[in-house]
């Protein structure tokens, strides 16, 4: 086990969560949220300016490969966020978009919220990673309100980020808690933005959104392309033998 106590893929299989596959009734290991984040971290190029959204994306900062420097952006006006502040060293004027006290890395800067969104909407961020409730086969994203949920929901910065990022990755579980696919032909949840998603990383697969459709790039260990397709609500393009996910 690494020193941070988070199980890494490539370690013994008991590090992978066991969940019952809802469709076939066969138990199959799926990635944990930390492992989804670990896989998604590999998509970030060295030196990139990156925004991480709520949920699984926020875990990515803890999984950057050694030797990679990423300048994390926060929509409240920070570029160059470092790790979470240690207990006792928090400064509550230095928080990320989730209110978590953070630190800075050398080269960091502050700016106001409008400039923070000039960076998101204006196409200045290299990569943004958001959570998702649904992604359509065209790359439409729904991630800000679940129909029927209490209250009005909250958009936050998601629409600006989704509209503007050069590369948008969505990290989410492949299915809902009830077993319904979250990758669908058309989103039925309230939309965040149209045709914005480039890559989807789930607990079962890595999928690229291409003009011709959803291209299956990798499957989770122990899963086949056919099994992933069975839990996906839109057709997957399978061009070759699909490799298992790599984590380094």
């Amino acid at each position, binding site marked *: 086990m690494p020193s941070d106590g988070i199980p890494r893929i490539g370690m013994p299989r008991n590090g992978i969560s066991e969940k019952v596959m809802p469709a076939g009734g066969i138990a199959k290991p799926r990635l944990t949220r930390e492992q989804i984040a670990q896989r998604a971290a590999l998509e970030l190029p060295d030196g990139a300016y990156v925004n991480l959204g709520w949920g699984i994306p926020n875990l990515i900062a803890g999984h950057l490969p050694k030797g990679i420097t990423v300048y994390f952006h926060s929509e*409240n006006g920070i570029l160059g966020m470092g790790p979470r502040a240690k207990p006792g060293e928090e400064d509550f004027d230095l928080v990320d978009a989730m209110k978590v006290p953070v630190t800075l890395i050398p080269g960091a800067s502050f700016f106001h919220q409008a400039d923070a969104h000039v960076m998101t909407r204006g196409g200045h961020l290299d990569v943004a990673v958001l959570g998702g409730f649904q992604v359509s086969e065209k790359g439409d994203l729904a991630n800000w309100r679940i129909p029927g949920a209490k209250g009005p929901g909250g958009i936050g910065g998601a629409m600006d980020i989704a509209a503007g990022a050069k590369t948008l990755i969505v990290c989410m579980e492949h299915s809902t808690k009830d077993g319904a696919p979250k990758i669908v032909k058309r989103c039925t949840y309230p939309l965040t933005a*149209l045709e914005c998603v480039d890559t989807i990383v789930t607990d079962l697969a890595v999928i690229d959104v291409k003009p011709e459709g959803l291209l299956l790039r990798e499957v989770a260990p122990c899963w086949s392309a056919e099994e992933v397709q069975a839990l996906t609500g839109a057709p997957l393009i399978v061009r070759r033998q699909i490799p298992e996910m790599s984590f380094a």
Partner: protein
Amino acid sequence: MVGGFGGAGFPNNLIQALARKGAKNITAVSNNCGTRDGELGIMFKNNQIKHVIAAFPGPHANHFLERFAAKEVTLELVPQGILCERMRAAAAGLQGFYTTVGVGTEVAAGKEERVLEERRCILERPIHADYALIKAQTADELGNLTYRLAARNFNPIMAMAAQTTIAEVEEIVPIGAIHPEHVVTPAIFVHRIVQAKGIRYAE
């Protein structure tokens, strides 16, 4: 307009004073809708706000959520960057702008749509305000402001967008004590300064 984000940069002394004053039928513009009694929460608790324009009401905005469920307050939900730009349009004397943000979503409802630079866009209008309540770190006696860390957030934008801007600051220094290159909000945008020790509300 009320500044602040993520617990940082809220003019909580000014909000508390407005709550004590008891002004009613307020239209509020703020990123979120309070953290329990803290931040804007007290104003919703007192039923002082009738309409709010916000990007993310927030999971701890229980007073807002109760008023909203009871239809005692209405909400316009706005993407956060567009909230900034609509205020900045007001500040800059612009009558609106077109953006791809929100196209095809609930946000686009009732808005003019057209194609510009081969992309679908919607027309967004400026957001004006009579007052901005903002939080800064240091003011000089003329009203030039600096901010601290990420407590800057919405405050400089709101300062520019309102007819009257009231800044709550930790300290007031003599004119000239802030280096001109370090001024973030120039004094022309600031009409009142109030020195008070900042209040922070925990989660």
